[in-house]
């Protein structure tokens, strides 16, 4: 769970300097994990979801920057 909080912070932080972002990230990841448990998804899937979340977050960030770069 500590890992989830830390990685949640890291994953969404990549943006441009908001102090609240890591906190929101951590809460989001915590909520998603809670929802997984409530929906009886096996615990073995947690790491997979975490990895997918990190990749989705950084990819979104990368795409955003690529599109912004192309406009210039």
């Amino acid at each position, binding site marked *: 769970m500590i890992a989830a909080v830390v990685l949640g912070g890291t994953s969404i932080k990549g943006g441009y300097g908001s102090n609240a972002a890591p906190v929101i990230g951590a809460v989001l990841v915590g909520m998603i994990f809670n929802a997984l448990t409530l929906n009886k998804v096996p615990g073995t899937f947690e790491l997979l979801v975490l990895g997918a979340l*990190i990749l989705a977050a*950084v990819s979104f960030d*990368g795409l955003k920057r*690529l599109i912004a770069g192309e406009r210039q």
Partner: protein
Amino acid sequence: MSRMVTVAALPSLGAHGRTLGLIVIFVVEMALLGVFVPGYLDLYGLLDATRLFAEAGLVALGMTFVILTGGIDLSVGSLMALVSVTIGFSFTAGLPLPLAIIAGVFVGAAGGFFNGIVITALRLQPLVVTLGTFALFRGIAYAVSNADAVSNFPSWFEMFGQTYIAGEMPVQLVVFAIATLVAWVLLDHTRFGRYVTALGSNELASRFSGVETARIKVAVYTLTGLLVGIAGLIYTSRIFSARGNAGIGLELSVIAMVVLGGAKITGGSGTIAGTVLGVLILSYLQDGLVFAGVRNDWGLVVTGLFLIVGVFLNELFRKEKA
């Protein structure tokens, strides 16, 4: 006059001096192990110990290329688990074992390719991308295996991790030696190798000189993935069991070995000879400690210390060179 000689001698002290220094460290280490750990310096024992580090050694060869480009791959340990689980569970699902093995090694290369594509296509930091796949690959391995292990392989599967060649040579030592040779030729004697180093020292300049940097990067991560695939096969055969917790902490040892071997973590400088010496020094020290009956946890402490010492030595040598 004497001052001129010193100045002229210094540049050659860079890479070669570093390698020489590592050889001295290795010899001193083995001598110390011989003195303080009775019975450790036994030829067969030392050869057998290579079983335990050929896997990390193979991955370290690939990681050398990755670090040379200025990148990093944190996902190697997780990818090894995914390779192991692919072999075990596609075999359980009914795939003939030779095909399951090919599938496993392929998954290794594909995982590396995925890292490379995401890093280059979206222009992301290798550190964050491979942190993501660090969780993702092991996550898939756990989800597929349901945290179970497979170990009902036929006995011929032992040949990749438990047999000997020419009497006393563990099979994985031979694989590691061949891979080292290939990696050395690739890095020091091909255009690809020169591009890898050039890319790490100045990416923009390489791109403007017509080097297809994205393609080189993807190739480097795929190569590492392929080596992880082979290492995963050897691991699965050695412990005769496919499991999702394979290779935990592998990335740490491997990066420590490469950095200790003199590769600059920001890219552009590093050698295969240095990496192999890094592998030998760290592995025999860990193995010697275990042999002496020191608790396993101290191996991790030693890895951490050597990582720091390695970075420090790199800085020292670089300053002298400059």
